[in-house]
């Protein structure tokens, strides 16, 4: 009797998740290098009901096999990351970089709870952070070191007159009017980008590869420095399309309303049963 209610209630819960996802995308409309996520629905299980014991009496005029099948609603099948590149925003700031090649990522060293892990991002707004010994370190806006060609953090002496990052990712500083190449950004290419996991704070991480035939190098591979295509003084914007998100939001909200109507209608039907006597 309460199948209708369950169908609608389950689906509304899942639609709410979709609305959450859309609002997350919209909230990150101005997050550099953010990749939009989308979700798609899938139907839930079907119940086969033998509506009559005498199948032959039920057979005349039928088009389909015996019994009737009633579904139990829908749920989100999976969420997908849209990896297409966002548009460029020219900032003219020396330490802003945009990676022009698809699926290229910067490597970031993140230390959490004493564990150091390499994570990946396309957010190229970089900063200099002073460290001990009169040096500065290239970091992300969260202060995580950016990995350089040497395999470690990029550090060099302070007292810089000017700094810029060239098209192959080399950090060029100007000291006493002389240009010096300090280090280069170590860019990686995600060969199997679908395997990357979002780790929050605009970063991606490698999934747990245990039990799969892949090793880390199969997911991301190092890019030769000269194959880099980097635009400095620009940032890659998020690839969220506001119009699409709003359209999805409206559609999802309507679907939510429709399912709420199902519950109302079912409630009224139960009311009618109650009024029988």
């Amino acid at each position, binding site marked *: 009797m309460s*199948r209708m209610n369950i169908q609608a209630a389950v*689906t509304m819960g899942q639609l709410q998740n979709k609305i959450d996802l859309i609002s997350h995308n919209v909230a990150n409309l101005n997050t550099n290098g953010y990749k939009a996520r989308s979700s798609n629905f899938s*139907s839930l299980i*079907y119940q086969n009901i033998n509506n009559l014991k005498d199948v032959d009496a039920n057979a005349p005029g039928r088009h389909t096999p015996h019994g009737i099948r009633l*579904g139990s609603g829908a749920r989100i099948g*999976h969420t997908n990351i849209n990896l297409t590149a966002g548009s460029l925003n020219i900032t003219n700031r020396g330490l802003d970089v945009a990676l022009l090649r698809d699926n290229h990522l910067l490597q970031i060293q993140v230390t959490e709870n004493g564990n150091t892990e390499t994570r990946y991002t396309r957010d190229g707004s970089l900063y200099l952070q002073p460290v001990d010994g009169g040096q500065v370190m290239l970091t992300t806006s969260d202060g995580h070191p950016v990995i350089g060609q040497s395999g470690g953090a990029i550090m060099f002496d302070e007292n810089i007159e000017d700094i810029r990052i060239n098209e192959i990712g080399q950090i060029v500083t100007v000291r006493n009017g002389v240009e010096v190449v300090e280090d280069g950004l170590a860019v990686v290419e995600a060969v199997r980008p679908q395997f990357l996991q979002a780790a929050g704070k605009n970063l991606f991480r490698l999934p747990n590869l245990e039990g799969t035939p892949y090793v880390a190098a*199969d997911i991301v591979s190092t890019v030769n420095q000269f194959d880099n295509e980097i635009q400095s003084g620009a940032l890659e914007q998020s690839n969220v399309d506001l119009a699409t998100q709003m359209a999805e939001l409206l559609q999802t909200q309507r679907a939510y309303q429709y399912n709420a109507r199902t519950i109302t*209608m079912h409630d*009224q039907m139960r009311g009618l049963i109650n009024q029988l006597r």
Partner: protein
Amino acid sequence: MLRGFYTAASGMQAQQRRQEALSNNLANAQTPGFKQDQAAIRAFPELLINQVGKKNIPTTRPFSVPTQQPIGSINTGVYVQETISDHQQGGLQETGMTTDMALINVELPDETGGIFFAVQNADGEVRYTRNGNFTIDGEGYLTTNQGYYVLNQAGEPIFTDGQVFSVTSEGELEVGGTVIPLNIAYTENVNDLIKDDHDLFTFTEGTGEAVDARGVAGLTFAVQQRYLESSNVDLVQTMTDMMQAFRLFEANQKVLQAYDQSMDIAVNQVGRLT
């Protein structure tokens, strides 16, 4: 006995069943490749009513013979006979995801025919789906969003190695220089298929079978990568049907109440002694 009591109750039950099918359609209005169900309602098998009486024969020793006079046929109720999936093509929706594919019926040789992606369920059996919202699993195979392998023409899982691939409109997947034709299955009569869990269709034992769509004469299809086939649920139609089913439910309830009132009179008024 008032026969109509049960007739009205069966009417309520049938409308309830119909509502359940409709509300599931509504719930799946955003499920790619979903095919809406239509509940077919049918009367209970027909019965013939006879008037049974007797006739006195005026003779010296009066005796009577039983007589039967047919009155007409009656159906004592109604039920949902079957739920039929409407296999009409859904609209196309662009998603931009490389793992999304929409299957388009261009020309089918049979009016009741249908084409599907063939996938392998958890028990290793072949199932059919129109939901091309695929993904890549941790081992690099193309799967449905439930993790069921999508099959190639030879009936084997498709190994993409996790790399970006392209799909031609002929349904050929190209990855790293290898061309893998997708398994597109054709059945002459889609009504032989029943809905299985998670967007899958299956044949029941003894009914129909699917053949390779590429070998069928007069059949053309197209596969569109980065698109999904939307659910073919017509929201306006569904909502109208639900309102209609609701009112029919209500009408049957009123009839049931009327019978109850008749019964009340019969029991409490007619048989009253004082």
